[in-house]
């Protein structure tokens, strides 16, 4: 059975803007199991990256409430040194842009080696180098000995991302957080990197949190999917369930708006309105309601909760029951799509 590695309970991460705090991650509860890929999907500004950063404790000036339990131990608000013992050893992170995620002045070997050094002080220099080279081999970098001495700018984007991954997995962490790991890459590279992550997961038996906006990537990678909108999770389900039976209006809209290489569509679905900014998030009621104005207000809950529709399939707000695409009623609607 699934072993809970990470359990997030009612996490609320707020940022200070002017004199107020605004929650970018709002009451999120999740768990990540061993040997599982949990994908978190959403559009920019939905809070998915903020969630990833919260887990890693990388926000320096955010207010965090709620619990993040790593193997049952709360890591919210623990001391920096404790957190540092955790980070890199038990939890690793892969960043979106491999171009900026590597220190331009350090050779590859040292950057990966640093992760080893920090958590395994006994290793001698040569041992460390040996391990780094193993890691480089493991992430599929040819001529690892040579690359060891190279600087980031000498590598291609795909190679750099492999280096970032090697850094993240140096200590075989149980949790790997991948924040849009392939967004900056070409599609052929993307598939290689995705395959690599998958293989590593199998290898290390770890739990992976995959942050992405690309439904194709989700379909390829995820075991379970959480869809986020406006700081909240609006739907969680097993990947097949979600792709076959998306329920929440947002999830459904998202699916309908992606041009798909495998099927012909003349028109794509358009979600009305715009993604609200952090300061303008509707904090009461269904946060998606303003973007589906044709759905009657009464369809929404006053305080939308996640409902477990089927085992493991949660949907927020009751509006899903009443949702339909306007095209189905009136084809012209989207002409309007402007505030």
């Amino acid at each position: 059975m699934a072993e809970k590695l990470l359990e997030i309970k009612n996490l609320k991460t707020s940022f200070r803007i002017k004199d107020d705090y605004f929650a970018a991650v709002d009451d999120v509860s999740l768990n990540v199991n061993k040997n599982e890929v949990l994908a978190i999907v959403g559009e920019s500004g939905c809070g998915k990256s903020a969630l990833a950063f919260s887990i890693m404790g990388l926000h320096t000036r955010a207010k965090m409430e709620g619990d993040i339990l790593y193997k049952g131990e709360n890591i919210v608000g623990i001391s920096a040194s404790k957190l540092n013992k955790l980070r890199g050893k038990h939890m690793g992170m892969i960043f979106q842009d491999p171009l900026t995620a590597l220190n331009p002045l350090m050779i590859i070997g040292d950057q990966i080696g640093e992760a080893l050094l920090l958590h395994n002080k006994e290793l001698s220099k040569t041992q460390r180098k040996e391990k780094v080279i193993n890691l480089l081999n493991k992430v599929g970098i040819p001529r690892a000995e040579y690359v060891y001495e190279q600087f980031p700018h000498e590598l291609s984007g795909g190679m750099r991302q492999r280096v970032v991954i090697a850094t993240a997995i140096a200590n075989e962490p149980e949790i790997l957080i991948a924040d849009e790991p392939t967004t900056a890459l070409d599609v052929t590279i993307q598939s290689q990197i995705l395959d690599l992550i998958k293989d590593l997961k199998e290898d290390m038996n770890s739990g992976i949190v995959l942050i992405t906006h690309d439904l194709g990537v989700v379909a390829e990678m995820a075991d379970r999917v959480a869809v986020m909108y406006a700081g909240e999770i609006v739907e969680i389900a097993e990947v097949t369930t979600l792709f076959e039976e998306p329920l929440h209006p947002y999830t459904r809209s998202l699916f309908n708006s992606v041009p798909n290489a495998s099927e012909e569509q003349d028109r794509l679905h358009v979600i009305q309105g715009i993604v609200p900014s952090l300061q303008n998030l509707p904090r009461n009621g269904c946060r998606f309601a303003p973007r589906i104005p044709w759905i009657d207000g009464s369809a929404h809950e006053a305080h939308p909760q996640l409902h477990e529709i089927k085992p493991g399939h949660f949907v927020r707000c009751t509006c899903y029951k009443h949702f339909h695409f306007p095209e189905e009623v009136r084809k012209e609607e989207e002409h309007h799509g402007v505030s």
Partner: protein
Amino acid sequence: MWKFSVRRILIMIPQLFVLSLLIFVLAKMMPGDALSGQIDPNIDPERIEELRIEMGWYDPWHEQYASWVGGVMKGDFGMSFRFKMPVTELIGQRIVNSFWLSVATLILTYLIAIPLGITSGRYNDTFRDQLITGYSYVGFATPLFIFALVMLWIFGFQLQWFPTSGSVEPGMQPGTFDYFMSKFYHLLLPALSMALITTFSTILYLRNEIIDTKQKDFILLARSKGASESRVYNQHIFRNSLLPIAAFFGFEITGLIGGSIFIENIFGYPGMGQLLIESISLRDFSVVTATTLLFGVASILGALISDIILSLVDPRIRIK
């Protein structure tokens, strides 16, 4: 990089050529000559005329320039009229002083600026930071020469901690340890005065760099590796922020040349800046042209050194 340096140096030759021409023409346009200062009823004006003719003062300027350039090509900058010695030798004496003054100033500048800049950048917007930036602004606003005079007055005369003129205690044997210490002691106060005033730009620059670097992705990566704050700063942020400072190094030289003119004057320190001003005023033109040319070379080399340093420490540039 080698090619790059050679190319830069080749580019600088025509620049220096134009510079020397400009200086030469300007010098010729200035009223008076090295003999104006010899007006004296007991020196025969005819002797002065004779000397002018010997000096070639009445030759067409382009001929004078040509012969000057010809000399320079052979490494001969002519004779200083005032000092009656070859310019090369004269500058040789002075440049050592200026060189060490500059080195000391640079070292002091960095000794002061780097810790302050780092503190200010790391703890930005704290009280400490405001204190340091406050100092920087005041430093920015204080004219160098007033500050130097005050320093001289307080530390040289009131407290008598430092000597107040010259570059070395009279009578020291060159080459001895005492001589060296005496030289060092003499340049400390001028160097400190100049350094304190010139630090501000470095501090502010470093501060901004650090604040900038702090937000870079690779810092996040370092944190996610489990690096402690101090390690993040020492290993990642400082190294990356100090890089542009290192690059600044060469450009500081140009600034130092300007500053040394004031400082050497106030502290009676016989260096190149003082020599230049005196030589212009006394129309010792061979020295003027040689000195300005040398300053030009120094500025260009400064820029070149900056580029080279940058290419040495920054692997991204190194490869090109």
